[in-house]
C-alpha cells in the first residue's frame, strides 16, 4: 500500500517511475504519506467515538426486541443486532472503548517500560541485570496469554483490561528504551556533557532521552494497535468489556450465531477493527521511516 501511494505521489510530481522501485530505501515523502493517511483514518475513528458520546445517536444499549436483526436502513444506518440495538451507535461506542483501551494501556506500558528500561540502561550494573531479567521473564509469556492471565486474576472490566494489556506490553518498552539508552550513554555528546559537569538527571532528560524518543514513539503506535487487537480478543472471550456495553470483540462474539442471517453484524465490527489497526500500523510505519536517521 505504501508503495502504491508513493508511486502516485511521484507520478503526480512528474518524476520517473524507476525512482520508486521496491528496492529503494523508503524516502521521507512516502513516510509522510503513510503518516497522513494513518492519521486521517485515526481521526475519523476518533470522530466516530466522539459522536457516540453525543446524544444525536441513539444510546448503544437501547433495546427494541421488535426490530431485531434489521438490515441497514434509514432508521438504522448499519442495521440492528439480536436485541434490536442500533449497530451504528454500538460500533461508535466500541470505537470509544477501543481507543480508550489502546491509548490507556499504551501510555501505561510506555510510562512504566521507559522508566524501568531507562533506569536499567543508564545505571547499568546490577540494576540492569535485575530489571532486565525480570523483563525477560515477562517477555517469555505470549502477550495475549499474559493479558488473559492477568484479567482472570484481576477480574474483567475496562480498567482491568487496560491494566492487563498495559502490563503485558511493558517489557517491549523496557527493552527498547534500555537499548537506546545504552547506545546513547557511550556517545560523544553524553561524554562531553559529563565532562562539562552535567548532573545525571540533566544528561538523561536533555541528551539521552530526546535521542531515544524515536523508537519509543514507533513502538507506542504499534503497541496501540496490538492493544486494540488484544482487547478485541479478550472481549471476544468474555474477559474484557462487560455486557451490555459494546466492544468490537464482544460484538463479533455476539454476532456469531447469526452470521448467515445478518452478515452486517460481523462485517461492521470486523471492519472497524481492521481499519483502526491498519491506521495505527500506517502511522507507525511512517513514523519509523520518518524518525529513522538512515532515511534522513
Amino acid at each position, binding site marked *: 500500500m505504501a508503495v502504491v501511494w508513493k508511486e502516485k505521489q511521484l507520478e503526480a510530481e512528474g518524476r520517473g517511475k524507476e525512482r520508486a522501485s521496491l528496492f529503494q530505501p523508503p524516502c521521507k515523502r512516502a513516510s509522510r504519506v503513510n503518516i497522513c493517511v494513518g492519521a486521517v483514518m485515526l481521526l475519523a475513528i476518533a470522530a466516530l467515538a466522539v459522536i457516540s458520546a453525543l446524544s444525536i445517536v441513539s444510546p448503544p*444499549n*437501547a*433495546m427494541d*426486541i421488535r426490530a*431485531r436483526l434489521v438490515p441497514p436502513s434509514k432508521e438504522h444506518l448499519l442495521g440492528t443486532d*439480536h*436485541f434490536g440495538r442500533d449497530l451504528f451507535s454500538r460500533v461508535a461506542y466500541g470505537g470509544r472503548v477501543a481507543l480508550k483501551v489502546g491509548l490507556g494501556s499504551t501510555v501505561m506500558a510506555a510510562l512504566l517500560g521507559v522508566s524501568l528500561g531507562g533506569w536499567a540502561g543508564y545505571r547499568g550494573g546490577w540494576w540492569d541485570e535485575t530489571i532486565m531479567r525480570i523483563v525477560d521473564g515477562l517477555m517469555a509469556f505470549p502477550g495475549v496469554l499474559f493479558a488473559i492471565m492477568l484479567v482472570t486474576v484481576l*477480574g*474483567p*472490566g475496562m480498567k482491568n483490561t487496560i491494566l492487563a494489556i498495559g502490563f503485558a506490553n511493558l517489557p517491549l518498552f523496557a527493552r527498547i528504551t534500555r537499548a537506546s539508552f545504552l547506545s546513547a550513554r557511550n556517545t560523544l555528546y553524553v561524554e562531553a556533557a559529563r565532562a562539562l559537569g552535567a548532573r545525571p538527571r540533566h544528561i538523561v532528560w536533555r541528551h539521552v532521552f530526546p535521542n531515544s524518543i524515536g523508537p519509543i514513539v514507533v513502538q507506542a503506535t504499534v503497541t496501540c494497535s496490538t492493544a486494540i487487537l488484544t482487547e478485541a480478543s479478550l472481549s471476544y472471550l*468474555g474477559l474484557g468489556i*462487560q*455486557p*451490555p456495553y459494546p466492544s468490537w470483540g464482544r460484538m463479533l462474539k455476539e454476532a*456469531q*450465531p*447469526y*452470521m*448467515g*442471517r445478518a452478515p452486517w453484524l460481523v462485517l461492521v465490527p470486523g471492519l472497524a477493527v481492521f481499519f483502526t489497526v491498519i491506521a495505527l500500523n500506517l502511522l507507525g510505519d511512517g513514523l519509523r521511516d520518518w524518525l529513522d536517521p538512515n532515511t534522513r
Partner: protein
Amino acid sequence: MPWLLVWLFVMLTWLGLPVAAAGPKSGGHLVVAVPIDPDTFDPHKAVAAATREIDYNIYQGLVSFDTEGRIVPCLAESWETSDDGTVYTFTLRPNVFFHNGRSLSTEDVLFSLERVRDDATGYPMMWPKQIEEIVTLDDSSIRVQLKAPYAPFLSELVDAAIIPKEAVAQLATKPVGTGPFRLVEWVMGQHVKLARFDDYWEQGLPYVDTVTFRIIPDPATAILNLKAGAVHVIPRLSPDVAWQVEQAPDLKLLKGPMNTVQLMAYNLDREPFSDKRVRQAINYAIDKDLLIEGAAWGYGTKIGSNMSPVVDLYYADLADYYPYDTAKARELLAAAGYGQGVSVTLSLPAEYDLHVKSGEMVAAMLGEVGIEVNIELVEWGTWLDRIYTKRDYDMTIVGFTGKLDPHTALNRYTSDYGRNFSNFRHEEYDKLILEGLQATDIARRQAIYSRCQEILAEEAVAVYIMDPNDLVAMRSDVAGWRYYPKYVDDVGHVYFDK
C-alpha cells in the same frame, strides 16, 4: 395440471409413509453431539449433568421415570410401601444381566445402595441419610427401611445406579451397568462410543447398533456437522441457532419443556433486597414475555414460582402473579425509600448464554424504573464457589434443572438448607416442607406444595422467569426421540426411519 399431480403424489406418499413403515426399525449408527465430556463414569460420584445425560443409557436403578415424570418399575419389577411410608420392599426383575455377563442379584442391589449411603463414596445427594437399614429378604426381594417417612424417596432412587461389586474399582473409566448400551471407548474431548448390549432385558431395545456422543463445544460447529450428516442429533440446542435448523430442508426441530426453572435470585441478606417491596418492584419491572422473546427467541414457558409446569401434578400456575407494571414498580421502590434510584450488581455465569442474554435484558428493564444494574460475568467455577456456596453476590441468573419431586425442587428455600443461597427464611415455609415429607396422601401433598409455591411468589424470593424449551435438532430420518423431565438423552428408543 401436471404440477398438481406431482404435488398430490408427493403429499400422498408423504402421508402414506408412516403407515407403510409401521414400528421402529433396528440397526444403524447414531451420532449425537454434546458440548462437554462426562466427569466420570462412576455413577455414584458423578456430579455433572453432562455425565447423567450419557450414562442414563448405561446404568439403571431399581426404579425409573417415564416421559411424564411418573415413577415406573425398572430393575425392580414391583415394590410395596408400608402404610406409614417408612418401609419399601422391592422385588427384582428376573433375567437381568450386567454388561460383564453376570446376572443381577439382590447382593448387587445391597452393595450399590450401601455404597451410595457410605460417606466415603462421596455421593452428591443427601437423601441416602434417610435410610435406616437395607436387608435382603430372599433371592429376589430386598427391603429398605427409612428413619422417617420420606415422600420423595422413590423419585430420588431413580439416580441410584445398581452396579456389580467386581467392577467397582475401574468404574470411573470402564462402566458396567444393566442399561441398553455398554461403553466401547471414551476419548476425552473427542467422543464417547457406546454399542448395543445384546442381553438387555427390555425386549426389542435398543434399536440402533452403536451410538457415538461426539464432544462438540461450539453450537455453530455442531450445526454444520448436522447439516453435513456427520451428526444426527443435537440435544438442547441453543435457541440462537435454531433458525438454521428451521430453514434446512432435511433437518427437524423438536420442542419440549426442559423442567428447568430459570430465575433471577437475589441475596436477601443484602440491601436493598432485604426489603420485600424492592423484590416485588423488581418483579413488576420485568416483562417476562418480552424477556423470553428477546433472550430465548420465544422458546420458553413463563413461570411464577420455583416449579416448572411439567410437574403438572404439583404445579401451581403463578406465572402472572406480578404482571408487567412499571408504574407500580416505581411506587413500591419509592415506598421502600429508593425513589432516587439504587445501584446493584448482577453476576452472570459467562458460559450460559441464555442467562447472560436474559441478564442484559433485565439490566435494560430495571434501568427503566431507576435501578442501575452493573453486569459482571463470572466463570462457572467461580459462580459455584463464590455465589452458590459462599453467597457473596447481589443478584444472579441461573437455572435449576430436572427435579421430579416437588420436595426436591422446593426444599432449597428452607432456612437451614445448605444451598439456600437466597438466604430466604420463612417459618411457615419450613414447616410446610417438613409436613410434605411425612404426607403420603397426594391431595395433602398437592395442597402443601401449592402453598409453598405461593409463598415464594408472594415473598418475591426471586424473579421466576421461564422454563426454557428443550430444543432438539435432528436429521429428518431420526425418529423415536423422547422427552423426559430430567436431563437425559434416551438413545435406546431412537431409530432411523428411512
